[in-house]
């Protein structure tokens, strides 16, 4: 059918987002096909879009090698928390239904270029990747699995920080996860932290920042306090590149910025330097 024969074709009435992916950083419109072929990296500004944990696992592990651990661990509601928009339990159940995940991280064993690892991958879609007690349990138990099987541990972080709805219990996850990571350090087992967009607050101030190697993706947001809070505190406008992966690299807190397409090879190479066979 020639274009002039098309009269108000249904396709034309499709919402814009059905045809185009919109880069959330530079707002470029990119055809979906191209967007996905580029692993959801913006061809214009190189922003690495957020991935689901399943997409991430597929990208960095050997096909079919991932086996989930503790998949039944889910959120708890220790405070019976309720805020202006209702009970936390209902919100969390909504997140489970929407994402098909039980928690903000999926953990398991996997192979990366034939090297056996324990892997944790956070998913920002689940309550902003927030660190709750179920999240903490999965991270801690995966570290214990790495210790037991003497495998390296890799965590991909993607989180706004603590899960306020779990209050102090959320804060304690920072201590619990770091305690488990510290055991790996003592045992001489490699721990690689990958900070993806965004890694902030209580997650950056715990397991995400204490890798033997800390790496990030281009232009990821990495920082401790929120931009607005800092601006209100110091009463100054912050530089545009503030709290980007590039800024954090320049200040000495991450080792390397790795493009998504090179991530798997980078991890395998690093693991081999760490003596993993």
């Amino acid at each position, binding site marked *: 059918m020639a274009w002039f024969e098309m009269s108000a074709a249904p396709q034309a009435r499709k919402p814009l987002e059905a045809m185009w992916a919109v880069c959330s950083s530079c707002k470029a419109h990119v055809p979906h096909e191209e967007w996905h072929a580029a692993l959801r990296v913006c061809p214009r500004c190189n922003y690495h879009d957020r991935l689901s944990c399943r997409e991430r696992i597929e990208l960095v592990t050997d096909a079919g090698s991932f086996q989930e651990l503790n998949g039944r661990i889910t959120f708890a509601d220790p405070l019976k928390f309720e805020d202006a928009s209702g009970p936390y339990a209902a919100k969390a159940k909504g997140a489970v239904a929407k994402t098909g995940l039980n928690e903000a991280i999926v953990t398991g064993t996997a192979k990366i270029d034939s090297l056996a690892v324990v892997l944790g991958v956070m998913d920002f879609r689940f309550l902003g990747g927030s660190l709750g007690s179920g999240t903490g349990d999965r991270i801690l138990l995966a570290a214990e699995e790495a210790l037991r099987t003497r495998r390296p541990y890799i965590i991909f972080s993607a989180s706004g920080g603590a899960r306020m709805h779990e209050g102090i219990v959320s804060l*304690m996850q920072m201590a619990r996860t*770091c305690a488990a990571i510290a055991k790996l350090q003592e045992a001489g087992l490699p721990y690689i932290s990958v900070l993806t967009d965004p890694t902030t607050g209580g997650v950056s101030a715990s397991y995400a920042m204490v890798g033997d190697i800390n790496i990030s993706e281009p232009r990821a947001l990495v920082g*401790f306090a929120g931009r607005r809070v800092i601006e209100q505190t110091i009463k100054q406008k912050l530089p545009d590149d503030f709290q980007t992966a590039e800024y954090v690299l320049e200040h000495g807190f991450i080792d390397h910025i790795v493009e998504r397409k090179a991530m798997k090879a980078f991890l395998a190479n690093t693991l081999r330097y760490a003596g993993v066979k």
Partner: protein
Amino acid sequence: MSDIDFSKSLTPWQIVQVARTAGRPLIQDYISGMCSDFVELHGDRAFGDDRGMIGGFATIGGERVMLIGHQKGKNVEDNIKANFGMANPEGYRKAMRLMKLAEKFHLPVVALVDTPGAYPGLEAEARGQAEAIARNLTVMATLRTPYVIVVTGEGGSGGALGIAVGDVVLMLQYAVYSVISPEGCASILWRDGKKAPEAAAAMKITADSLLKLGIIDEILLEPAGAAHSDPKAMVKTVKAAVLKRVKELKALPGDELTARRYAKLRRMGSATLANG
């Protein structure tokens, strides 16, 4: 403050006001009131000496310890120097240096917690506030010397936790300990900072709630009318409680100490490992 009737049970928001009130004993009062000797140790050996976090050798009831804690000022001038008790990365790194020194010299650590939070500033970010706190968490978890924590005033989020992972957590009756300030929580989850009283209640930030949740081990009762009305009595209570815990923990060998600490952290705030 003046409208609080201490003969009745206080609301969480009233307790927040008490925890923040001027005249409440600060680390300076605990040092002068419970230590027969204090040798301040300065600096993180990398950047500077943070006045929002202080520490040093201390003798409490004949026990030599390493004392560290947040420092707030007694007046505006001192408060500006101490950054209102909000430590910078060099403060956490100084604390870490003292923790490791305590381990090397076989001194128990006593940490006094009283901070609105770690300082949220441009320089703090540039120097790695997140890394400084995170590193401390790993160090404290495996430190082979007793570690006793007292939450004396405000236990403000990661800034508090950055020196507060240990064997035992004591908390003053009208202290608070939370993942975010009630005002911060209210402005995010209620979209209205004025709902802080509601947020304070919902977050369960008071000593009795935290004891029930298994986050703290003991509540230290405050004198009639709260700590600020009789600082000497408060300091005496803290001294006795700290001394008792230090003596108990000193009896444990290093391996057992760290194994018990890990087991405690593993259970604490777990969704599933309560009995594990």
